[in-house]
């Protein structure tokens, strides 16, 4: 009970921790980008007239959504080398994050496209625009607006999920904090501080997302 808190190791490790925040950001942003690519590709495949393709996408989404990320990242970590792909832990983690986030993105984006009424599509076609133009000029922005809240909270979740990448020693905040902890044995102090870091990171991301939304989606709706 006569434990005195000692934050010295944390303060000494501060530069390392701050750099590690950058690592976390890198994982998060690259993971997000990959997730968006997978999400859009998945939605397109999901609408393909070929039944096996549609089932493949559905199977992928359900497989990812119903298993823990930790198991997924282990699996990918061991599977990639067997497939002849040798990558460092950090890119491996990005791939795992992108695949995981992509599965959720597929469902979210699909909902957004479905939320746009058929009339919008038809009005565009009736004006002589091509399907691709209709999608790019008419469907995209309202659909993005519709999915923006769920997509961004999914991204925050993905950012927090980066901490699990420490399990394969990717370079990010949690793994760096674990190193400081095992050197100093000041477990509580280290993890408490790092938790606060994460809180700030997710808060900052939320602010950025909100700012972007007020800029880009400022048109009024009924």
């Amino acid at each position, binding site marked *: 009970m006569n434990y005195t808190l000692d934050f010295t190791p944390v303060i000494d490790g501060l530069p390392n921790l701050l750099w590690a925040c950058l690592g976390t950001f890198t994982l998060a942003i690259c993971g997000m980008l990959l997730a968006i690519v997978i999400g859009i590709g998945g939605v397109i495949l999901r609408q393909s007239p070929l039944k096996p393709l549609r089932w493949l996408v559905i199977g992928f989404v359900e497989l990812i959504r119903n298993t823990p990320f930790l198991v997924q990242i282990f699996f990918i970590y061991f599977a990639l080398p067997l497939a002849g792909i040798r990558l460092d832990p950090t890119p491996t983690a990005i791939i795992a994050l992108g695949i995981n986030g992509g599965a959720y993105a597929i469902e979210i984006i699909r909902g957004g496209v479905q939320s746009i009424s058929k009339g919008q599509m038809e009005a565009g*076609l009736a*004006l002589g625009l091509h399907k691709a133009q209709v999608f790019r000029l008419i469907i995209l922005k309202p659909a993005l607006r519709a999915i923006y809240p769920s997509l961004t909270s999914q991204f925050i979740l993905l950012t927090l999920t980066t901490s699990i990448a420490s399990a394969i020693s990717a370079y990010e905040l949690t793994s760096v904090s674990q190193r400081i902890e095992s050197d100093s044995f000041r477990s509580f102090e280290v993890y408490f501080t790092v938790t606060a870091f994460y809180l700030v990171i997710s808060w900052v991301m939320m602010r950025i997302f909100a700012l972007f939304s007020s800029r880009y989606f400022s*048109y*009024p709706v*009924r």
Partner: protein
Amino acid sequence: MNQTINSATTTEPMISLSGVEKWYGAFKALDNINMSVAKGEKIVLCGPSGSGKSTLIRCINHLEAYQKGDIHVGGIMLGHGSKTIDAVRREVGMVFQQFNLFPHLTVLQNCMLAPMRSLGLDKAQAEDRARTLLERVKISEQAEKYPAQLSGGQQQRVAIARALCMRPKAMLFDEPTSALDPEMVKEVLDTMIALAEEGMTMICVTHEMGFARQVADRVIFMASGAIVEEAPPAEFFSNPKHERTRKFLGEILGRH
């Protein structure tokens, strides 16, 4: 073909359908439709709900595919290749019951989009054209607003201007006033009447019988996917030939 063709015109019709059939699976939505619309002619299409009115005019700009028959628009045969479909869509404007304005674009941008992207006008030309037509539907002061900031009647007039910005040879209206509050119906009908007086070729699905009397050259009555009767409005209303037409008119005029 064209037994039903309007005898007043000798030139090629603006829009003609011959033997058009449309199926939804096993359900026949259009049954051997033959009609022809001359340049400058105004047609009012009416009939009970589900009779195929929307389906018919949506086939004309190929928002719906059809399985049999031919449709010609402005001399273009509406084939199934995308080239002629695009060409036809550039020639005919369409106004929807639910307006279908694009919520993320201002009124002006709504009107400029297709002329720029589909006709290749530059920005200045498109804006010029848009402002002129917004003027014509008497809504130019709302040009910078977004659709959600307008009343239903205003939105529908913008939708008309947006279609006109493509300088179409013909206009299709699918119940343009039935989603409107009663007090806004008149402003939209007035816009349509003005358009008719300028000589636009029009096919209007509507149950506004006053409009039909005033503007239509012919009224076409549909039931169960087929054209049952067609006649000039005076004759159509005073002396309907078919039992189904009489029943329909009884219902619709009795309601008003």
